[in-house]
């Protein structure tokens, strides 16, 4: 018997020596709470630790913008849950964007991406917009492709690309895939709410936050109809869910000329579909870390959570002067759930206490999500 086992062991040892541990094939460890399912991931870009690590370096590298003035992290700031405190963003050349920078929280679970687009469903595609978009210019790569790519030919980046994408060239496809993997890795499930729900810790929420949570999930306020499920956004999905809904809503933020219109600069989903019924329809974003992501709405036009609650309590926003004046409450395209509600000052405080309990301080301090030492890839 021993005579047979020894050659077998030798053969196994030989095979093992021929196939050293392949870093590019090590699956990514999501480190999720036990009850939280993993997100769906595209077949053509499976998550690996090597791609996430590379994507993190690129995310924080200003070399990705043509004029080397901006990185992805310039508008997606970890301390703000990867949103930014500006009303709307500015590109690398200073050009104004029409929208507020979306927070990058559990984006891996989103069925659709951006504030209002029903066809962009994978991060790899989404990333091409800020990289190559010309209206407005964000990273400004269009026309500067070779110049930008050349910056990633450093010795360190070459090693990282080889580890993440063995045998593949350093190109924008690989950059987009690596960035997508890093953005997918930005998961947040360690708020007091998560400890209350997933860890069963009754002491994780204050009495006020629990009252606010009960209000949030009540049929009186209806918050959870659009900001429901585990990710506080009905457009979220996961690996065990076959539901394929792509909801967008008009919440009565504007009502120009009382015909349902939003400012011409941004009519939401209508700008993609040209369906008149889609005017003013936007995706409900996650409310996780919402206390960190002000200002609110697609155009950053509301500064505080108190003002957001006031809007929903009124059943829409009324603007009495200026070019955007109109009674949003009467917007004919407004979602049926934005019907308004009565709320006391105490209830509002409770609701805000609950929203504050969605803040995940681990997420905004986690060093693996933070800026790496760029000298590690600079080749210097």
């Amino acid at each position, binding site marked *: 018997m021993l005579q047979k086992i020894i050659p077998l062991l030798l053969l196994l040892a030989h095979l093992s020596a021929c196939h050293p541990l392949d870093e590019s094939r090590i699956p990514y460890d999501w480190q999720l709470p036990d009850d939280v399912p993993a997100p769906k991931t595209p077949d053509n870009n499976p998550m690996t630790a090597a791609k996430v690590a590379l994507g993190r370096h690129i995310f924080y590298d200003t070399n990705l913008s043509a004029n080397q003035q901006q990185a992805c992290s310039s508008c997606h700031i970890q301390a703000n849950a990867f949103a930014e405190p500006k009303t709307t963003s500015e590109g690398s050349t200073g050009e104004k964007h029409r929208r507020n920078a979306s927070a990058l929280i559990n984006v891996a679970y989103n069925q659709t991406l951006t504030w209002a687009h029903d066809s962009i469903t994978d991060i790899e595609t989404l990333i091409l917009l800020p990289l190559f978009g010309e209206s407005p210019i964000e990273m400004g790569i269009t026309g500067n492709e070779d110049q930008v790519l050349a910056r990633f030919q450093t010795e360190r980046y070459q090693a990282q690309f080889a580890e993440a994408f063995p045998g593949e060239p350093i190109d924008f496809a690989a950059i987009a895939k690596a960035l997508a993997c890093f953005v997918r890795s930005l998961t947040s499930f360690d708020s007091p709410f998560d400890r209350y729900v997933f860890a069963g810790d009754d002491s994780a929420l204050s009495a006020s936050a629990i009252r606010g949570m009960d209000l949030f999930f009540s049929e009186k306020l209806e918050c959870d109809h659009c900001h429901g499920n585990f990710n506080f956004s009905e457009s979220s999905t996961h690996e*065990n*869910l076959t539901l394929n809904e792509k909801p967008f809503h008009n919440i009565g933020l504007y009502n120009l000329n009382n015909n349902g219109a939003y400012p011409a600069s941004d009519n939401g989903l209508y700008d993609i579909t040209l369906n008149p019924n889609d005017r003013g329809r936007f995706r409900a974003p996650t409310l996780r870390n919402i206390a960190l992501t002000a200002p609110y709405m697609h155009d950053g036009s509301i500064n505080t959570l108190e003002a957001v609650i006031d809007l929903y309590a009124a059943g829409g926003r009324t603007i009495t002067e200026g070019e955007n004046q109109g009674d949003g409450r009467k917007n004919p395209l407004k979602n049926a*759930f934005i019907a308004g509600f009565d709320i006391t000052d105490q209830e509002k405080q409770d609701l805000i206490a609950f929203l504050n309990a969605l803040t995940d301080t681990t997420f905004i301090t986690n060093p693996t999500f933070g800026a790496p030492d760029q000298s590690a890839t600079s080749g210097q």
Partner: protein
Amino acid sequence: MNTHQRTIVYSIPGLLLVLALLSACSPRQYEHSLTFQLQYNDQEIHCDTPIKTNSAQWSLQRWQLYLYGVEIHHNQQWRSAQLIPTQTPQVTSDDRIALLSVICKQSADPQTQTTFNVRLLSSVAPDAVDAIRFTVGVPFDRNHQNPLTQTAPLNRPDMFWVWQTGHKFLRLELTNQSTPFIFHLGSTGCASASALRPAVEKCKNPNRIAVQLDNIKHPSILVFDLATILEKLDNKTTTRDETNDTHNCLATPDAPLCQDILSTLGVNASQTAFYARPLTRRVTLNQSTQP
């Protein structure tokens, strides 16, 4: 052939005889297909079907419901039937609960399915069925669990409130040019420490609907008719201000309209404790062939 082999060969007829006897003891199982269809005044409803009443023209947005506990009546006896797993409608992996789900997209896709064949096994032959009963809802022991760890279709967020109240049993949403109608039915009055803690005891208002359909003639189609609900809406006098006028009934028994509709569906909203009653008037049977 050695002794051992001979023993095996000689044992086979005996085994076959035992199997035959066991088989004879098990009642034969027949496969049924219960066809459910959404209708308005005898017309099948699709997402693009204009639903005209005396005062409005409605269009369908959603019609979704869970059902379980199907039983078939024959020879003065009710017998349990077992759901057969299918993708449409979705059936839980333990073959207990089915979800009928119509969600109309913005484009009002005429192809969206509004007729469902619920397949099941029963010891009663299809042509011997004289009554059928089932419950609209989710049984209590499955209603208040973490939806993230439940199997489909109980993991759908669009049909779940919270741990405390559990699933929406029935979701009906219609729209017209001025005022939408939203009706969500599920258990209410469920006691727990918070919305995110499960009810541990039966809810004050279970709001499950016991449906019994008598005088079945095979084959039949089970119709969910919107007529009486829309008749209630026609008679509705608005109580909200004109800015936010809606016909929302979210299992709250306060509004007169909601009481009427709950009652129409088989839930007596005028009682302090809800109870279920037959839905025979609302789910009517027509003699027609199965599609």
